[in-house]
């Protein structure tokens, strides 16, 4: 339904690029945000703007967000304590914020989370849940913090007796018709109602279960399951569909106690961002079909990482337990992906599973061997061939992998390139208009930055055919798949390939080295914005599989040209020393959201340069 255009409909507001300032008409974010805590709970901060103009709508049932009002009782405003900055007091602490910041945003900046349901840092304000009511001195009634701008000298009490009572009674209302579903609801463990009940509710129920209004349960919307009874009518899904994907799938139907969320004719969600609906829903009304009933979230640990699906590099949480990854969730990064990620990326976790993974090194004639033995063989061949070697890097590798690989090529004087299929051409091409890019590699930019487009793939293949290349080392099986390369490959006496998955083309190599995947290593990727971001190890690699940089270091050791690094952190330090744009960077400086290199968009190390 979301894709079909109906005749004569009014032009929609263009779907927002989540990486730019939020929804049309809204104000840009006031200040850089902090990272939301792992493991669910209300996301921390940042403005999706809101104060000001209401975005265009099409007669929707979504209540228009009212324009934020400055305090009603308005004696002449006191001169600001600090010019250009609003200074006010929240819970006895002084805060200084940019003008236009709402109370809820300001509270988050000082580390205080005001309870809320409908507010979301990356969606326009709606103000319908009434949970974020706070007491503001000189204002008679309680005000909603999400849509009230902080003004100079304002004194806010977020947990005064009146405010606490308002939180409790709002929760009571929200729970009046809420089904007794916790044991069968996936949201348990990351549910706003559960969390806020313990912090702000703790009241006794006054309702009998028979009195509750019944609505539809288990409505299959494709990638998403809808349970209308659990919905708290916050309209986050409606606003997401309207302002992020522009597909307008959801609306409220019926009214009063019987209001329900629904898609037209229960048609499924077909766009590439369905998973975000489950993330954005604060309760168990919208849940991921893929994750349904698989794992209770309190058993999961979360590792901060970056999706490897394309060159956007959406920040993610890798949720795992006992060495198995159960899902990926977006991790908020205002510069890259806001709070969203696409479904293509979400499915990436399925590739990590052990079956079909290469768990041991092997030789074509001989079967599985210990990794050290395989490395011995490769090193022997390299030592014999010296400059008659070629190296094909993979834009699937981390910067650390690439650096060590380049060091290997440099130590022998062999050829090196990475451009199997011209990934750099699609590096910045936005494929679905929102997040997914056409370059489905996470680190093409890293290859460019390290100058790996040096020799040219044609030259390498020519060298293979002519016999100039005696040993060919591949960081991934991409080249083995290329039909045009088949002839050249069959002429090379020795091919070694680092591979993560068992694919038929590995047959063409003499030695297969087992490579660890992105969720199994420490390292960094550089996205299309030239933003260097850390990935963190979530689960152990299967069997003998090792990080690519570690295997390259093993080869360098055997060639008596040691890399000089014993951890990914140390490899990155060497890398930062060797590249001008990376000077001064280290893992600590990258932090949780990464750092953009200078010359954003313009690659200093252009291909062939």
């Amino acid at each position, binding site marked *: 339904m979301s894709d079909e255009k109906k005749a004569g409909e009014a032009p929609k507001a263009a779907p927002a690029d989540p990486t730019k300032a939020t929804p049309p008409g809204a104000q840009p974010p006031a200040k850089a945000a902090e990272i939301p805590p792992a493991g669910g709970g209300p996301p921390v901060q940042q403005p999706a703007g809101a104060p000001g103009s209401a975005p265009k709508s099409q007669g929707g049932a979504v209540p228009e967000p009212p324009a934020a009002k400055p305090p009603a009782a308005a004696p002449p405003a006191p001169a600001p304590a600090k010019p250009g900055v609003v200074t006010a007091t929240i819970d006895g602490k002084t805060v200084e914020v940019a003008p236009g910041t709402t109370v809820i945003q300001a509270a988050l900046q000082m580390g205080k989370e005001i309870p809320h349901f409908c507010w979301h840092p990356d969606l326009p304000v709606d103000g319908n849940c009434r949970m974020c009511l706070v007491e503001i001195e000189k204002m008679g009634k309680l005000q909603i913090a999400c849509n009230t701008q902080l003004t100079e000298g304002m004194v806010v009490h977020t947990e005064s007796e009146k405010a606490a009572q308002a939180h409790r009674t709002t929760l009571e209302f929200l729970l009046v018709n809420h089904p007794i579903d*916790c044991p069968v609801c996936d949201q348990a463990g990351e549910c706003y109602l559960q969390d806020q009940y313990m912090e702000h509710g*703790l009241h006794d129920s006054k309702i009998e279960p028979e009195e509750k209004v019944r609505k539809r349960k288990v409505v299959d919307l494709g990638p998403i399951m809808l349970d209308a009874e659990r919905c708290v009518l916050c309209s986050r899904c409606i606003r997401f569909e309207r302002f992020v994907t522009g597909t307008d799938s959801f609306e409220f139907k019926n009214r009063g106690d019987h209001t329900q969320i629904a898609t037209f004719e229960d048609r499924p969600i077909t766009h590439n961002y369905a998973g975000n609906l489950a993330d954005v829903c604060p309760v168990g009304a919208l849940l991921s079909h893929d994750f349904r009933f698989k794992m209770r979230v*309190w058993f999961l640990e979360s590792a901060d990482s970056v999706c490897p699906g394309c060159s956007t590099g959406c920040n993610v949480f890798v949720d795992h337990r006992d060495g198995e990854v159960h899902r990926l969730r977006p991790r908020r990064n205002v510069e890259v992906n806001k709070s969203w990620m696409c479904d293509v990326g979400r499915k990436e976790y399925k590739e990590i599973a052990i079956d079909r993974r290469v768990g041991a090194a092997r030789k074509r004639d001989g079967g599985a061997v210990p990794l050290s033995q395989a490395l011995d063989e490769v090193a022997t061949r390299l030592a014999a061939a010296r400059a008659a070697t070629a190296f094909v890097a993979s834009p699937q590798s981390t910067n650390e992998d690439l650096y060590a690989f380049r060091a290997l090529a440099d130590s022998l004087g062999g050829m090196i390139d990475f451009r199997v299929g011209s990934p750099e051409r699609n590096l910045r091409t936005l494929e679905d208009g929102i997040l997914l890019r056409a370059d489905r590699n996470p680190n093409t930019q890293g290859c460019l930055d390290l100058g790996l487009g040096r020799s040219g793939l044609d030259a390498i293949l020519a060298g293979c055919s002519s016999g100039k290349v005696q040993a060919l080392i591949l960081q991934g099986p991409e080249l083995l798949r290329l039909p045009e390369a088949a002839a050249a490959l069959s002429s090379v006496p020795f091919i070694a390939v680092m591979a993560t998955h068992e694919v038929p083309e590995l047959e063409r190599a003499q030695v297969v080295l087992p490579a660890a995947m992105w969720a199994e290593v420490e390292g960094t990727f550089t996205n299309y914005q030239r933003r260097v971001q850390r990935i963190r190890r979530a689960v152990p690699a299967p069997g003998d599989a090792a990080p690519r940089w570690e295997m390259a270091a093993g080869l360098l050791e055997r060639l008596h040209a040691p890399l000089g690094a014993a951890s990914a952190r140390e490899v990155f330090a060497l890398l930062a020393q060797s590249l001008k744009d990376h000077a001064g960077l280290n893992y600590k400086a990258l932090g949780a959201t990464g750092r953009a290199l200078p010359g954003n968009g313009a690659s200093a190390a252009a291909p062939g340069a």
Partner: protein
Amino acid sequence: MASATEAPPVAGLDSPAARLLREQLGDRVKGVDDFRGDLAITVAREAWVEAATLLRNHPDLDFKLFLDLCGVDYLEEREDRYETVLHAYSVSKKHHVRLKTTLPERDPRLDTLTAVYKGANWFEREAWDLYGIKFDGHPNLTRILTHDAFVGHPMRKDYPVGKRHVLKSAKEWLLTRTPDPEHTVVNIGPSHPAMHGTFRVQAVLDGETIADCEAEIGYMHRNFEKMAEVRTYWQIIPYTDRLNYCSSFMNGHGWTLAVEKLLGISSPPRAHAVMVILSEFSRIMDHFVCIGTNIVDLGAITPFFYLFRVREEIYELLEACCGARLTVSYVRIGGLANDVPADFTDRCRALIKSVAKYTDECDRLLTRNAIFANRFKDVGALSADDALSYGWVGPCLRGSGVAYDIRKDHPYSGYEQYDFDVPVGTVGDCYDRYLVRLEEIRQSLRIIEQALAKLPDGPVIVDDKRVALPPKEEVYSNIEALMNHFKLVYEGILAPPGEVYGYTEAANGELGYYIVSDGKKYPWRVKVRPPCFNIYQAFPQMIKGGSLADAVAIIGGLNIIAGELDR
């Protein structure tokens, strides 16, 4: 644990300890804290020995009782990764103190305190074993709880919880000095019935005299403290049962009080009264084990049978209350899991009679028995000074003449309401320890009778939704109670950030829990202050120069329970 009847406040930021340390150390005192009334002083590590010496020797401070020394790993949370924490007590001033210092990750070294407190020896070995903290000047800094094939320091935060190492062969040689070739080397234990619960001593015998010996423990080390870091406060309760399993209820009692101290709440009066009654019965049970097994080692079987017979009846009482006999898991944070059965008072009164009868029998059989006196009198005496320096507590310390009983000096759970005496010995030999225990049993019966008479009505669990589970009828019929139940089970109780040391008078003496909370659902650190660990540390010294037969007599009377010794 301070009650209203405590001596004048010596806590607080301007307590004598803080003041005197500041005067002497100046800016080497890095911080003073009194969260929940616990005085905690952090000093620079260069001042560690000086500070401990001052605390121990200064007449206004007199912290002569060594309680505990442990490591804490703060990983990246703090600038210096490790902390070493000392707990000590002043019997004369009736006050506890916590002394801390921080150690950087690259160089976790600290001077040994073995010259200040004898008990520090094993504790420093444990901190080395579990954390990799090196103590300069320690006479024998080797592993003590983990085995010799173990690699790594398991209590470090980056050591995976489930990681194990297989031990393929036992350590044959424990002795550090080469014995005279004329002498015989014997292993006493670990699989010896007289070594109650697997511990081992390698002794060099010159005829029947023990010329030299060395102890080895850790056979029952299960790293309770590591498990505590990945369990909620409730989930830890069954683990506490398995510390001193001869009186498991008392471990839970101490645990819930320590956590309540951290939370700033208290169980309701009825829960406290029941806890007193069951703790005293558990104390009696534990003393029966001690006396019974001690005496059976020497060949007197009859008292052993009698005492274990009456223990069965105490087990039945516990079973009626909570369904379990040995490892009861009966406490909850904030009170008890459920109320006692309707006939509780009658059962207890019958049990008092039974216990009194068997105690008297035991008394008649042993106390003035010539053989018994011969085996026990003037055997295994430890001076009060040594006892304090090692960190002896409970009946063993009181046997040596030091009248320290937490129930009197820092009453908890309403002990101040009950009239009872605390028996104290004079010589500190096995006979004194036996008499102290025997009399403690009688005093426990007095306490139980008074507690029964005063047993208040009311709930047995605190009325606080953040701590206690809602009733099941509520959980199944409304969403609020269901959510409450869910959050309490999968997240547990959220204690405020901070640290406390909670302590109770368990059967063997001061059982303490040092809990560090970071505000999350699992505690950051739990250190059990295990009375058996301090007591057993003195054992090798006590038996050197004595006969093998005396060693057997001594070990039984110390009541070493491996579950508490090794954790």
